[in-house]
């Protein structure tokens, strides 16, 4: 359909196809970011307003490892994810566990403040300038027929899907994964069968953080980092999660792909800097008419 639209407005249909593929590849990363948010919401019912900022910290850590040690982001991914896992674990145990019983208004502020702290920590440590590391593959491109595909985007997409599958297997098969699902289904029930729910919450938040960290590392070769980009990604994650349904992990992935394509295709009509207007409008429309998300049942 989008190719037809492209033709109608006199655009090259190859360009439209190219944008859609680029958007789809980026959408995989959006899905991964949103999955972390959705996991945290699904288990604890808390919205992590510091999500994008955690991702930015992960990007800087990866950047640091790349610049100081020369290790490619794809190789340092596991280390960075582990670092942010610890960060998430600490945030959950120090702050979030204490506010779970608060009214929603008071839950928002500590996490917003956490975002403020992380954002300014990045500013303090790495300065306000944009940085774009030239990794080995960041400028490579593949041609499939008339369509050009960035290798870094392709790798990011494949790895994002791979990590998503890993998280699914983790949640379905492992003991901790089962405990996480139990705690999210029924907190009291989980406590009754002897699960240390607070520790499970810590692990869930940490896992959500590590997921977004992985997404950040995959994003590193694709776009320049700046301390202030966290908000944008927090909001993108909100859009994706609401699109797919809060707490729905498959929804997050599909929502990410849809949003990636929608944003990318919108650049056919709008300046690229306005593409977020499209996503925020999608967000408002979905909240109005399908608050349970496009894959949710009746709310």
């Amino acid at each position: 359909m989008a190719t037809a639209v492209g033709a109608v407005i006199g655009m090259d249909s190859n360009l439209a196809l190219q944008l859609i593929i680029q958007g789809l590849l980026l959408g995989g990363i959006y899905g991964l970011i949103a999955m972390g948010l959705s996991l945290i919401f699904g288990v604890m019912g808390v919205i992590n307003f510091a999500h994008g900022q955690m991702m930015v910290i992960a990007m800087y850590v990866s950047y640091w490892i790349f610049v100081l040690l020369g290790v490619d982001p794809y190789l340092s991914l596991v280390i960075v994810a582990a670092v942010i896992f610890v960060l998430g674990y600490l945030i959950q145990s120090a702050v979030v566990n204490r506010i779970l019983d608060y009214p929603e208004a008071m839950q928002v502020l500590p996490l917003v403040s956490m975002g403020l702290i992380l954002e300014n920590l990045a500013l303090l440590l790495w300065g306000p300038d944009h940085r774009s590391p030239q990794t080995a593959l960041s400028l490579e491109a593949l041609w499939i027929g008339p369509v050009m595909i960035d290798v870094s985007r392709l790798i990011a997409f494949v790895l994002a899907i791979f990590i998503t599958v890993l998280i699914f297997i983790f949640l379905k098969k492992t003991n901790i994964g089962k405990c996480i699902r139990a705690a999210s289904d029924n907190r009291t029930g989980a406590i009754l069968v002897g699960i240390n729910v607070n520790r499970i919450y810590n692990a869930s938040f940490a896992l959500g953080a590590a997921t977004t960290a992985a997404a950040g590392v995959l994003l590193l070769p694709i776009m320049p980092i700046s301390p202030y980009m966290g908000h944008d990604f927090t909001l993108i994650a909100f859009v994706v999660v609401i699109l797919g349904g809060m707490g729905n992990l498959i929804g997050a992935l599909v929502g990410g792909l849809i949003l990636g394509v929608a944003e990318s295709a919108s650049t056919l009509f709008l300046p690229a800097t306005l593409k977020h207007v499209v996503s925020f409008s999608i967000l408002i429309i979905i909240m109005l008419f399908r608050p349970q998300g496009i894959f949710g049942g009746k709310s």
Partner: protein
Amino acid sequence: MKRVYLLLVGVFAILMALPLFLDNYALGIFVMIFFWAYVGQSWNVLTGYTGHISLGHALYIGIGAYASTYLAQTFGLSPWFGMLIGAIIAVIIALFLGFLGFRFGIRGVYFVIMTIAFAEITRLIVSHVEALGSFSGIFLDFNPSFWNFQFRGNIPYYYISFGFMLASLIAVRIIEVSKLGRFIIAIREDEEAAQALGVNTFKYNMIAIAISAFMTSLAGAFYANYIFYLHPNSLFGIALSIELILRPIVGGLGTLFGPIIGSFILTPLSEISRAYFAKGGLEGLHLILYGILAILVVLFMPKGIIVYVKRILKPILNPKREKP
């Protein structure tokens, strides 16, 4: 009760006389204290009293600032009138947002996200409107006169911002004791119960968001003519929305004096530490401290600092009760 008024009159007299003793820099800090107290109070009307959290109040500041400046630069209209037009625009947008939110049952975190989305959409659109300076923003010319809402030195700004804060205090007090105030507090405590008792919750939510947007956007016009530079990222951005909610929450959410107490504590801290840390090349450190402080307040004194202020003032204000 009379001692409370005596105390307030005393504080009022001191603040009225203060410009006689302070230099321009110190007055500037007080201008910011009054400004943030006023903005916090305006936000408090919606979030503190109805319980619907807005994290997009920068939207209204931006509208007030841009509308008054645009009208002044294009039509030569005084910002005194321009800010009223800006406030009306802000109210229309707030009512639209409120209509979507309250009519479609968007509550809690979804409402928060919607307020952010509205502010972000406006920020991005304003960034692309040539007449509003697009990405580079608008510089205001400095033509000091009362008509232009621009002044030399901080003394006029001091009294104007002080007047704003007092007016907001009185307005919120009037709301608090009126039927409207009782209804919106009932909404905050339990919206469904209030509705069951016959409160038209939709109507009162709409009134609250309209008042809040009106008040907030007036602050935008003041800000524009105090800072002289408008940029979409700083005026519509989420950083401003976060900044303006910190003081009322630290001071005491949903209380009359909470935003003022919060501002008197946080603003000097922020202004002084910002200057101090920026000199040492530690930009952003003051915001880290800020964030930590806000988290600590929410964790350990969720009702705000006002509780402790009240406790300290109690023996002074009600000496008889203290005697056994």
